[in-house]
């Protein structure tokens, strides 16, 4: 079987990127972002991207890099705060934004991967989110209809992969990554470690290999913290 392991992010993107494409990018805040693949997308020079991602990076980190180069035309997100560049591009009319409630965004992506073109949710009823969407009453409560999201390419960040493409994520760096992996026509994962089949527990795999077309090892391994919150360490006990 042809290997899913690619030597570099650039190699993994070969034949996949095209101007005007839709890209899903995993991560929440600065946790679980596919930094290596974002860098490679930047280097590829691909333009006019529609990017589906919960956030859009922060100064110098994550998808911010593709904003900075003007490669993103439209974002579909739930929260784009704390990102001055985003705000400026938006106000200058250089960036289109579609805001989704976070749970609706996650479910639309899951639906895209699961062959469900539309579903009903109470989230957003009576708000700007509901405008123009079909409404329907079930069991006496009002719901709106939301539609699936798919992408030409999904880039995700996992902790470990085996060579069959099975992925496991670590703690809250999981977030949107597993659902996005299911909704890309092509899905590329960057991981901290590649292991042999059998090293991951079959009962504990988060993303089965069927969803993963290509795997690379991260080369951007710095993990940033957006809001460092700590508590004082208790006084050392005497030994």
């Amino acid at each position: 079987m042809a290997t899913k392991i690619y030597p570099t992010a650039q190699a993994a993107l070969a034949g996949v990127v095209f101007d005007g494409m839709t890209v899903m990018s995993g991560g929440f805040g600065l946790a679980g972002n596919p930094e290596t693949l974002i860098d490679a997308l930047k280097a590829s020079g691909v333009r006019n991207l529609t990017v589906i991602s919960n956030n859009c990076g922060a100064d110098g980190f994550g998808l911010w890099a593709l904003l900075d180069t003007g490669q993103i035309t439209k974002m579909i997100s739930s929260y784009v705060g704390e990102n001055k560049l985003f705000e400026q591009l938006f106000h200058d009319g250089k960036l289109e934004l579609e805001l989704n409630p976070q749970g609706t965004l996650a479910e639309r992506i899951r639906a895209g991967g699961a062959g469900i073109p539309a579903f009903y949710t109470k989230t957003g009823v009576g708000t700007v989110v509901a405008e123009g969407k079909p409404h329907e009453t079930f069991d006496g409560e009002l719901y709106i209809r939301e539609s699936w999201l798919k992408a030409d390419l999904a880039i995700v960040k996992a902790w470990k992969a085996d060579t069959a493409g099975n992925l496991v994520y670590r703690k809250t760096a999981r977030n949107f990554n597993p659902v996005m992996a299911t909704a890309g026509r092509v899905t590329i994962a960057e991981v901290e470690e590649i292991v042999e089949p059998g090293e991951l527990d079959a009962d504990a795999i988060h993303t089965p290999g069927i969803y993963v077309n290509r795997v690379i090892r991260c080369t951007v391994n710095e993990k940033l913290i957006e809001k460092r919150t700590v508590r004082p360490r208790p006084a050392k006990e005497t030994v």
Partner: protein
Amino acid sequence: MPWTREQMAARAARELQDGFYVNLGIGIPTLVANYIPDGIEVTLQSENGMLGMGPFPYEGDEDPDLINAGKQTITQLPSSSYFNSAESFAMIRGGHIDLTFLGAMEVSQNGDIANWTIPGKMLKGMGGAMDLVAGVKRVVALMEHANKAGVSKIVKQCTLPLTGSACVDLVVTDLCVFNLDRHQGGLTLIEMAPGVTLAEIKAKTEANFTTSA
């Protein structure tokens, strides 16, 4: 004397019941975790994909892969579990969370809440707020009673874009506590900060409200 933010959080914490699963919004709601009453154990959900959120880490123990929905570094408890964003919001949307505390810019007398945007002033996004107000069993709003200019934030009708309609059950302000009937509509004043008078609350509240017997 109006309640401080800490006192508001402490008052809100009295809404907790033993065994509750709770989601804390950003801002004053985060403080609620510091006032969980004795004998009450609650499990905190973080909508980015964690159940059983622990306290902030000791300095030096921060883990960039372990953050809450406010992007703060947190810790894991022995009972914690992680899940993906779709599963997290299935939990929220499906009505499995007992209680959420949320900050608010405006709450109306029929239970509408606005807490995510001021048109033309800030570009942020609703994050998980719309999902929380639509899906959680009981929604408690924590907010200043009036803005700095003295304009009431407890209103007849919200002027800001809504986060959700007819979804708030209780409002805790720096002056008082209102019960809110999300089905029938209608605010009921059930508690006042010590030294705050009914006259003051009436003066500072645009919405209509009744007082409990």
